[in-house]
């Protein structure tokens, strides 16, 4: 028996266990790229439209931060910049998921112990996990290339796009191979890998944002931070334009080095433990935890922080786009789309903000709904039993979670509007005024979101065992009938069923009080009904 005896068996076992999920992970991103290619081809059929779009990307640091540098206006180059930034992240996520799941997660669930005690080598599970991840990345690369060729794009660029995406995934399979040796648990291994992915994304973004726009206005030379990031290396391949194949050696070398480090570390740790052990938590609780509200905040703050970071990024992008939108005014279809989304003004950039804030506001509703379902999860997991067996009333307990949901929503909207306003104001030269205008416009979304929050309170009070499905279905319907309903021309009576339809299109229009007060009243009604029911029903604890 050698160090990797049994790897083939483990690979077969892993492929069998992932026979549903892995194909989705591989096929969906490839399909997405093909769809993006088709979309680009139909949205910008004329060269001049593509030049305008590329100029927009090249000139906007916020967009470059998000999506990478511009590299010319060919169909292929536009497709690459449209797809790479997000699909490469998906490939990296897939790699991390596969590697963590088939190493540390198996060890934690005890499956790995059975395997380790059978006739397999000490490095077999790592070899199998990395092998499966790399194979999946290569298949993803092949499918992506195939999809692009079928879409009618040049073969070389298609292959370069696929390989750039696959190489990003492979680099993170290697990073995850190290993380699973270091981290104290599967969860922290995932967190560590995702932190590395976040850093790679940020470095790439900063380098691209600081990059230099060439005189043609269509290409950007990225600054040095991009070159510190595996995502940056793959992006710099510049598929369809430069096709710098040799750059793919960088992620490949990183993967080789990290896997070698992973193997070296694997020999030094115990089964089920990492090189780093969990330092543990405090031996006594801080005063801030010692109330139902403190507990709720402790459980909700992580999610809220994640949303807040997302809102800063989204706000920055939106705010940096608003004034450039005037450049695109020639594109009548875009104006039409924005108006349908909820914008209705003379000033095009205000129309743009109204439309985007409505849309993003509808998405922000995800936070309070998630928060209320978290409370519901406390009940169904049985942890609520501890709390309600103490001298804490039911209303007091759930009020803690409702407070987190509501205050969190207001904070997220303020962050979104504030950052967007600041970004916009820096361009227009009146940061304070724009900050106030756009913050107010973002806050206007709150009453509609609170209606859904109230509905979620009612759902977990009346239907505790199916609240998750009900709440997410509710949000989906509200978005489909609201912002989306405007785009696809649903009849007004149907659109009126969504709370989002009643949000005034600020800042493009005045803010009337009546619909907002009506929404708030409805939210209060739903919440009260939920509170009363919750105080009077059996808890839905595990049997």
């Amino acid at each position, binding site marked *: 028996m050698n160090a990797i005896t049994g790897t083939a068996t483990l690979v077969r076992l892993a492929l069998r266990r992932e026979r549903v999920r892995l194909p989705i992970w591989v096929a969906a991103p490839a399909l997405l790229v093909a769809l993006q290619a088709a979309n680009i081809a139909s949205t910008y059929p004329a060269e001049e439209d593509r030049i305008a779009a590329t100029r927009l990307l090249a000139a906007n640091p916020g967009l470059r931060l998000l999506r990478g540098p511009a590299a010319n206006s060919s169909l292929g180059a536009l497709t690459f910049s449209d797809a790479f930034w997000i699909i490469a992240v998906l490939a990296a996520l897939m790699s991390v998921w596969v590697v963590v799941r088939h190493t540390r997660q198996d060890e934690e669930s005890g499956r790995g112990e059975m395997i380790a005690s059978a006739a397999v080598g000490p490095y077999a599970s790592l070899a199998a996990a990395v092998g499966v991840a790399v194979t999946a990345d290569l298949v993803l690369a092949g499918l992506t290339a195939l999809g692009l060729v079928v879409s009618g794009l040049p073969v070389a660029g298609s292959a370069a796009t696929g390989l750039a995406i696959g190489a990003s995934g492979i680099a993170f399979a290697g990073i995850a191979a190290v993380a699973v040796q270091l981290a104290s648990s599967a969860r922290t291994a995932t967190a560590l890998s995702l932190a590395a992915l976040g850093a790679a994304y940020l470095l790439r973004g900063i380098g691209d944002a600081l990059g230099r726009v060439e005189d043609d206005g269509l290409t950007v030379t990225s600054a040095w931070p991009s070159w510190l990031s595996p995502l940056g290396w793959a992006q710099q391949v510049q598929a369809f334009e430069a096709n710098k194949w040799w750059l793919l050696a960088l992620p490949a070398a990183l993967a080789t080095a990290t896997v070698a480090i992973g193997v070296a570390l694997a020999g030094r740790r115990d089964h089920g433990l990492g090189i780093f052990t*969990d330092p543990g*938590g405090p*031996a006594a609780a801080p005063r801030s935890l*010692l*109330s*139902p509200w403190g*507990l709720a905040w402790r459980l909700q703050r992580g999610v809220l922080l994640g949303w807040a970071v997302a809102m800063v990024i989204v706000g920055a992008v939106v705010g940096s786009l608003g004034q450039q939108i005037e450049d695109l005014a020639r594109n009548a279809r875009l104006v039409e789309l924005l108006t349908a989304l909820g914008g209705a003004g003379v000033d095009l950039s205000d129309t743009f903000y109204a439309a985007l804030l409505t849309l993003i506001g509808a998405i922000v509703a995800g936070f309070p709904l998630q928060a209320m379902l978290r409370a519901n999860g406390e009940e169904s997991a049985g942890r609520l039993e*501890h709390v309600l067996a103490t001298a804490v*009333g039911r209303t007091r307990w759930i009020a803690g979670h409702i407070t987190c949901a509501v205050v969190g929503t207001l904070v997220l909207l303020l962050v979104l509007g504030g950052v967007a306003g600041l970004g916009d104001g820096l361009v227009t030269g009146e940061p304070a005024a724009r900050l106030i205008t756009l913050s107010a416009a973002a806050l206007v979304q709150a009453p509609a979101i609170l209606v859904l929050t109230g509905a979620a309170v009612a759902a977990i009070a009346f239907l505790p065992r199916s609240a998750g499905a009900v709440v997410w279905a509710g949000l989906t319907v509200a978005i489909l009938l609201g912002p989306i309903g405007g785009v696809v021309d649903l009849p007004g009576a149907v659109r009126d069923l969504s709370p989002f339809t009643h949000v005034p299109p600020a800042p493009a229009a005045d803010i009337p009080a009546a619909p907002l007060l009506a929404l708030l009243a409805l939210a209060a009604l739903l919440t009260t009904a939920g509170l009363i029911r919750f105080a009077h029903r059996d808890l839905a604890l595990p049997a």
Partner: protein
Amino acid sequence: MTSAVSVSGLIKSFGRTRALDGLDLTVSTGEVHGFLGPNGAGKTTTIRVLLGLLRADSGGVRLLDGDPWRDRVALHRRLAYVPGDVTLWPNLSGGEVIDLLGHLRGGLDQRRRAELLDRFDLDPRKRGRAYSKGNRQKVALVAALASRAELLILDEPTSGLDPLMEETFRQVIREGAAEGRTVLLSSHILAEVEALCDRVSIIRGGRTVETGSLGQLRHLTRTTVTAELIGPPDTLGALPGVHDLHVDGGRVHCQVDNDALNPLLRRLTDVGVRSLVSQPPTLEELFLRHYGAVTDWPRSGEAR
């Protein structure tokens, strides 16, 4: 004598399942009361009704002279509870959970907390997700036992503890009882019940089938008698209350109801006894009888 818990004719259904079907339970103040019954008998459901987590369909339920549903918040200041299946918050350390629950209950004895952590050999710095089943249970136990609660409600609190910790648990409960606390202890561990409880209630199918002190319960069962006689006995089988009779020459082996013991012994000594072994029923026999077929056994109400 006052009652810490008094339940009569309690009925609770979940949809079509009738979990509790006229259950009676009385726990006197200051006693350690064992609460027994096979899986699914309704112990956890009863306890959840007592805690105001579930609402009784009908029947009388009193807890510490209050209504467990209406007065739950006030009553919970005076009791501490350890659930049967302890799930903890994955990110909170054990120490944080102990402080949190103690504080929400209305206060924690810090000296006692430290002492219990030590005696249960529990590391309070670990996170919820890192504790084993037994250690999760210890977190909930320390939180409950370090409180100043006058009533402890414990639902199978030792199902994950090792024998050493089980012994610690028994000591701590005895100390609690000595301080005058009332304990309602649901358990499947007969030795634990025998070691700790003043009285027990056995339930089955949502009804109480037996309640009383262990001594009283033993009285309701049969004694095994093995005797060697000088000569062969006559017509022992005709005696009322004698079961499973085996006679082999002078050797007699049988089971006898406790109230039929006297006539049997008189008959045996009439013949002349060479040796006699009489075994009281073991607790296991007692419980197995109740956990199994219940029909051929007298209901507590009639027997006492």
